[in-house]
């Protein structure tokens, strides 16, 4: 029977949660790298046992770890993330020029076809690629070198490239998102990039046509329909039907359209999941009720999913990389909270149960469907 492997990055280490296809009983392994922040770990779609993890602390900096056995053992690989050429400056919070400085790797996106190729989104925002299993990293500097780069500003969490989406159909097409610059698209495997933020309305940006400056939190795509993108922005949930050329809001009846993660059902391209959060001032769910909202119509019409989730006194957050789905026949949905819970639904979100209750604050959740 097929099973799932849930890769969980936390403030104090990584955990690997495994179950069979019933997704009722779980084995918990970890912490790996105890005491270190694991912003993200993710498996290769081309080799389920090849995993990459971003390990860092404020004390000792950045490491990248690689596993070739599904997370049972790890080895450190390359960690030199040197900006291409003279880095130049971007805008600081006060509008003054600020040198580009590497801080950490937020997101690792393995290639769809080659286990040795992996992309890294970093702070200060830039995109790197390794083609040798993480040993060496080269910046794809066409992104940071875009004309708008010197005008990018950090969000409250830093100027991070946190989202990398690879198009499985259109060769060379990929998407990236940066807080608080916006969404970008490449059609030549990351060599050149352009902003794709038309239709985004951001409070505080007076120009509705502003090319950059938008605080995109997360982008999701269904692999069978890669021209349709869903976006959770700082405020607003949006949809594009033309690979990011134009966006329109689909927040509809959500109790709040602020939030971080957004995911698409594995088998239903119009079924989308978000976790509404009260506001950017209150990073917890509305009314203290932890609710995942599901749209089966590609947005606008949303239903709360509450069975098995705390409906009172709940004040956790769900971060942008902390929700994912599996690809079993009955699609499973998973998310982790800043309170250390990892919730799973084996029925597309209709009902939920906590796999674990008391991990460190969860930073990322990625799911592998394994034979």
């Amino acid at each position, binding site marked *: 029977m097929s099973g799932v492997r849930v890769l969980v990055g936390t403030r104090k280490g990584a955990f690997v949660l495994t179950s069979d296809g019933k997704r009722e009983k779980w084995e918990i392994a970890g912490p790996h790298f105890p005491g270190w922040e694991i912003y993200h770990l993710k498996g290769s779609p081309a080799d389920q046992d090849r995993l990459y993890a971003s390990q860092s602390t*404020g004390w*000792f900096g*950045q490491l990248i770890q690689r596993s070739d056995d599904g997370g049972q053992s790890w080895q450190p690989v390359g960690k030199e993330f040197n900006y291409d050429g003279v880095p130049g400056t971007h805008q600081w919070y006060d509008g003054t020029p600020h040198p580009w400085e590497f801080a950490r790797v937020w997101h690792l996106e393995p290639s769809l076809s080659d286990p040795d190729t992996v992309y890294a989104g970093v702070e200060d925002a830039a995109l790197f690629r390794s083609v040798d299993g993480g040993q060496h990293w080269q910046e794809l500097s066409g992104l940071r070198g875009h004309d708008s780069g010197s005008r990018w500003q950090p969000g409250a969490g830093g100027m991070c490239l946190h989202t990398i989406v690879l198009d499985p159909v259109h060769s060379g097409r990929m998407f990236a998102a940066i807080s608080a610059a916006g969404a970008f698209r490449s059609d030549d495997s990351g060599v050149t990039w352009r902003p794709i933020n038309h239709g985004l309305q951001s409070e505080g940006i007076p120009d509705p046509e502003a090319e950059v400056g938008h605080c995109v939190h997360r982008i999701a795509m269904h692999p069978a329909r890669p021209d349709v993108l869903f976006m959770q922005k700082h405020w607003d949930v949006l949809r594009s039907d033309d690979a990011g050329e134009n966006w329109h809001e689909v927040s509809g009846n959500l109790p709040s359209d602020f939030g971080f993660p957004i995911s698409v059902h594995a088998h239903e391209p119009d079924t989308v999941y978000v976790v509404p959060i009260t506001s950017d001032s209150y990073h917890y769910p509305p009314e203290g009720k932890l609710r995942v909202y599901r749209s089966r119509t590609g947005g606008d019409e949303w239903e709360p999913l509450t069975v098995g989730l705390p409906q009172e006194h709940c004040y956790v957050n769900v971060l942008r990389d902390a929700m994912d789905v599996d690809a079993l026949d009955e699609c499973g949905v998973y998310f982790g909270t800043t309170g250390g819970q990892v919730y799973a639904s084996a029925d597309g979100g209709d009902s939920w149960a906590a796999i674990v209750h008391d991990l460190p604050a969860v930073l990322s959740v990625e799911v592998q469907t394994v034979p």
Partner: protein
Amino acid sequence: MIRVALPAHLRTLAGLSGEVELDITAAGPDEPDVTLGMVLDALEAGHPVLRGTIRDQATGRRRAFVRFFACQQDLSHEPPDTPLPRAVATGSEPLLVVGAMAGG
């Protein structure tokens, strides 16, 4: 022989259980002193996984929350060519690499 005491996270990372011993010849009357930079160079050469964890790989600057102590002296702000105390250079005292207390 130079002795270096590392913080727990770096010992784990490098697979070490105690102090690191580095084969750097102690300074003689006509030989150059053993410097902080020499010790860090030797430490990173022997344990490449530590590159970048104590000082920035590109600039060589000490990471902000890492401190160096030896013989009751704070060497954290000393330049890399600073000679280490004789007791460290002869191996009777360790160089302490310390993760600073931070975060409240």
